[in-house]
């Protein structure tokens, strides 16, 4: 069956959210970037700033040289995520198959199965656009196509405002005249290589056969071959599939690169998540740490947990090297996020004869601490690591 994919894209999402709060900034060049941080880079910018040559990831100092009077606002990631969650609530009314970033203003919806309920996909997209505008004063670009790739290219074509409906069967003709850099999924190296061959348009690149592409692009050739023909079989990953996660955040009052403070914050987050896991009788099968630096950049590191766990100390032990791995820069850290994924029921073989191992002792200790906290409050008992904060490290 043909698919109906809607892509909603709120251009310059962070700027759109901020200017909603400060409407006086609308229509002027605006940069979202951490102001005071050394070596800060542009996180997002308004269309007016883009017209002046400012780009995402550009050093803030360079952006300032382009426009000395430009308005600069610090990023507030939590706010963007909150708005994103509110937007998703509206889209859930039409389909459970929704894929989105955490705070990038992009939403993919597969409405193939809900056509009988809500009518043609074009109408659903239009209704959502109106709802976003009315409720949040956010005006998304929207497109309707038969797969995610085409839908994404379509919104790129009309950015910053508008809509694009690519009729089924029209995919190849739609892509043909477009510049090749509009095709998502192609790496910078792929684009450079294609330019070296004087292939700038999709139609030009299509003149190469798969075998010819293999000579230049090796294992990436099949992907490039499909992409320039608008072939993208990847499904819209339902949000419920990615939602089997728990996360905790810690924003540092002052940007820091103090290792002890980071460890303390990490342990507090682990305590919080593991407590929820134990309450729900779940284990986590994977964990991820995301560090947001004061210049707006982020770095992340991920680890599979074998066996899965919900024990504070075990998880902390596993997360310490993960923190080191994620912490790749000397820039101060503003925010840390811990995500526990692949949540599942504990599947452990019960021992016939209970042995007192280190793990069982730790589990008993955690259980005892849980009981104390339930009875006397969250702060009634703490580990030494979380106590040492203010006195020793500030």
């Amino acid at each position, binding site marked *: *069956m*043909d698919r*109906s994919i809607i892509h909603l894209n709120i251009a310059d999402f962070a700027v759109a959210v901020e200017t909603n709060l400060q409407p006086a900034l609308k229509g002027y060049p605006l940069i979202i970037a951490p102001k005071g941080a050394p070596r800060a880079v542009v996180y997002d910018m308004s269309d007016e700033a883009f017209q002046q040559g400012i780009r995402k990831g550009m050093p803030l100092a360079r952006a300032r040289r382009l426009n000395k009077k430009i308005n600069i606002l610090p990023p507030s990631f939590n706010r963007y995520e909150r708005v994103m969650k509110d937007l998703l609530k509206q889209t859930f009314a039409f389909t459970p198959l929704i894929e989105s970033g955490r705070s990038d203003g992009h939403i993919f919806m597969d409405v*193939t199965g809900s*056509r*009988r*309920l*809500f*009518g*043609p996909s*074009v*109408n659903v997209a*239009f209704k959502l656009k109106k709802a976003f505008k009315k409720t949040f004063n956010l005006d998304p670009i929207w497109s309707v196509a*038969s797969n995610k790739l085409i839908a994404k290219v379509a919104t790129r074509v009309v950015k910053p405002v508008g*809509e*694009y*409906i690519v*009729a*089924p*069967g*029209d995919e190849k*003709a*739609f892509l043909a005249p477009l510049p090749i850099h509009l095709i998502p999924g192609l790496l910078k190296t792929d684009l450079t290589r294609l330019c070296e061959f004087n292939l700038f348009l999709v139609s030009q690149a299509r003149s190469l056969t798969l075998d010819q592409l293999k000579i230049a692009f090796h294992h990436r050739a099949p992907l490039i071959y499909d992409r320039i023909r608008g072939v993208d079989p990847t499904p819209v990953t339902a949000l419920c599939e990615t939602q089997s996660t728990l996360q905790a955040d810690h924003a540092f009052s002052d940007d820091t690169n103090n290792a002890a403070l980071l460890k303390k914050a990490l342990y507090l987050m682990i305590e919080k998540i593991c407590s929820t896991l134990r309450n729900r009788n779940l284990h986590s099968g994977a964990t991820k740490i995301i560090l947001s630096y004061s210049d707006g950049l982020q770095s992340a590191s991920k680890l599979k947990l074998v066996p899965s766990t919900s024990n504070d100390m075990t998880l902390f032990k596993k997360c310490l090297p993960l923190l080191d791995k994620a912490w790749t820069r000397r820039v101060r850290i503003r925010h840390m996020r811990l995500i526990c994924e692949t949540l599942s029921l504990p599947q452990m073989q019960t021992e016939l004869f209970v042995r007192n191992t280190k793990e069982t002792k730790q589990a008993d200790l955690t259980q005892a601490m849980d009981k104390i906290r339930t009875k006397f409050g969250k702060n009634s008992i703490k580990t030494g690591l979380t106590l040492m904060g203010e006195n020793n490290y500030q």
Partner: protein
Amino acid sequence: MTKNPSTACNLFIGTSGYSYGEWIDSGFYPDGTHSSNMLDVYMQIFQTTELNYTWYQMPKAPAIDRLCTKTPKNFKFAAKLTRTLTHEIKKGQWQKEALLYRQGIDPLIQSQKLLCILIQLPPYFERSVNFRNYLAALLDELSGLPLAVEFRHDSWVNDKVFSELERRKVTLVSVDEPDLPDLFPRLDVVTNPDLFYIRFHGRNARGWRSGNMQKQFDYDYADWELKEWANTLQTTIMPEAQAGGIFFNNHVRGQAPKNALRLIDLLIKEGGRQTPWTAQSFI
């Protein structure tokens, strides 16, 4: 203003849009029909369709050109006017939009496949001074194109309106829709001897203002209702115009093509006349 009585009225009967997945389940399209092949099947049965997507999006000449190439010579399209010219009018900008629209549908004109431009106005478009002035300016801006105006507010039921449309040779769209307060009533007024235009929206009064298209246009016309229309068409409307476009918008569960085919059947059998296509084999 009437047409020459000696000439026959060419009828173009079809549906509002053709790309509906649920028409496979209802049996109109064979199992496994891909969306990209729906027009191929559709044009074997009907010789006209309304282009709905041009209301949501400004038509783009290359895409329209591909549609023209795909369809046979005698196939006709009625293209809806874009919403920025009917529902979301921006003062000072709409003239530019009208120009873009003209450019977008140009392949239809060049290939002589344009039945008319359908100007579907919103329910709040009342007969006020501002809206009257806008409509007049819009018709001027689009002059030279075959135009049909669909009102959704009953304040436009006025002889002055009809005579002005007649003077401009603009078609007044007759609508079959529920009998609800403020809605434009069912009329058989022909204002343009070149073309009459009828839209069958269905008479689902409960679903009409539900905000859900699947409820609004969920209606299956009874045989007596279609017979009544066949009679009106033959006695009152068809003698007044050289051509006519009749479109069924009750797309839910494939009712639109089913009702359209039934109306063709009635017109052939009861009128003893020939339609410009061979519909008999599909009934």
